[in-house]
């Protein structure tokens, strides 16, 4: 069963065509790592999945619903977004809210969850990401790794069917990368459908069920990790791998 489908999606910023007729399907339970050179369109593709970017042409489906921030009714779009969690490179925690409030805000506002229930759930999630002692802290009191784990908990609080990660460890000091990757691995192993843009090749190889290699707005490879890493097809991917590994 496919959760997300991308059909013939193209996207330009001004004269620069960033995505060129992309086709992609994410099935339930898959862990898909999107890799590729800087500027190849990875973030843009990911952001098309929850319509933070709207394709110029082509369609994105979440199950059978077309996701499109321009044409869709706002309430319908929000319902879809509730089911698609997103974690950003720079965390984007709400600095005026405590860790607990960061996590409970959306369940309360968007799902109408009772405050008490939302808080209990938030505490469970903080446990899961190893931050139960930070319930009442504010984001600026946290390290980068802790912020990102809170951001993950915040996304999980909506009970998403799929999680999108856009280079979740790129803004972190090296010693904090592992704690975040461990959380992501834990989620992936629990069967949560995951799409992960990353430069961490070792990690992608370890947890991904599929690797998508993007280059200049095109998908050049789409294969299970053993196949992708051991039997790289395209010249571009070979060059890329030789640089990053």
């Amino acid at each position, binding site marked *: 069963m496919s959760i997300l489908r991308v059909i013939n999606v193209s996207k330009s910023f001004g004269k620069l065509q960033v995505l060129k007729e992309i086709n992609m399907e994410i099935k339930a339970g898959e862990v898909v790592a999107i890799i590729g050179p800087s500027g190849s369109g990875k973030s843009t593709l990911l952001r098309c999945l929850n319509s933070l970017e709207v394709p110029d042409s082509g369609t994105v489906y979440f199950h059978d619903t077309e996701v499109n921030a321009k044409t869709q009714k706002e309430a319908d779009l929000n319902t879809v*977004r509730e089911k698609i969690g997103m974690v950003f490179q720079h965390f*984007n925690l709400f600095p005026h809210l405590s860790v607990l409030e960061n996590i409970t805000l959306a369940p309360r506002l968007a799902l109408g969850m009772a405050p008490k229930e939302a808080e209990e759930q938030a505490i469970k999630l903080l446990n899961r990401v190893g931050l139960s002692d930070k319930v009442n802290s*504010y984001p600026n009191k946290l390290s980068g790794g802790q912020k990102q784990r809170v951001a993950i908990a915040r996304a999980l609080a909506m009970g998403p069917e799929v999680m999108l990660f856009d280079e979740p460890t790129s803004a972190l000091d090296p010693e904090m990368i592992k704690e975040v990757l461990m959380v992501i691995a834990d989620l992936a192993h629990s069967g949560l459908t995951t799409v992960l843009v990353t430069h961490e090749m070792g990690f992608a190889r370890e947890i991904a069920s599929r690797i998508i290699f993007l280059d200049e707005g095109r998908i050049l490879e789409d294969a299970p990790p053993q196949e992708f890493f051991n039997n790289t097809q395209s010249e571009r991917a070979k060059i890329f791998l030789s640089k990053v590994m």
Partner: protein
Amino acid sequence: MFIQVWASMVIDFSRMTRWIPTFLEGVGVTIVLSLVTVTIGSILGLFITLLRRSHLLPVSALAKFYILFIRGTPLLVQLYVWLYALPLIGIVIPPLPVSSPVFGTREFSTAVIALGINSSAYVAEILRGGLDAIDKGQTEAARSLGLSSRQNMQYVVIPQAIRIILPGLGNEFIQMIKESSIVSTVGIFDVMYTSNIVKAGTYLVFEPLVIISLIYLILTSVLTFLQRQLERKLNVDLKSN
């Protein structure tokens, strides 16, 4: 010659004491005028900001032109237009229904409108600055969680922007204390105008001007101090957050 004039000039503040009530009355008018003006300016400025953020191009263009026009012409000209030009085409601001000889005049109500509208354009800029200062990532995070654009504004953007906007509005009030002095040119009894009254009553020029300068200085200093306190408090709040 000059020196002689200089030497023969007697500075005598003792003759000012009996005018203290007059000065204080002016202070009251200046404060009321500035406060009412900035209040109207804030409400109108918020409205203009909403229009400017409209997705309808003509609406936002109109709001932008309004701001450009108001900020690009002198306040004094705007005041004269409201008071002397617009009545010629039938637009007259009626006096407020109060019996006070200061607040109940057409000049006062018109000044409130002219200054309020002027202030609204500056407030709109302050609001824009506050809203623009909030990182786009905040909105993206909120929307990706399924919050509506309204909820995003109400719970994510505005609570953060307030910390930038409130000090800006404080500044606007301080500016208005000084700039409202131009209403004295149309006979409104504010701090500036009291110096004319005292001059006429005493034939002294130097002393009343020194006194009203001090009055403005004290008003703006006190307000600046309060403003700093507010800013510090907001900053502390932000830090503890």
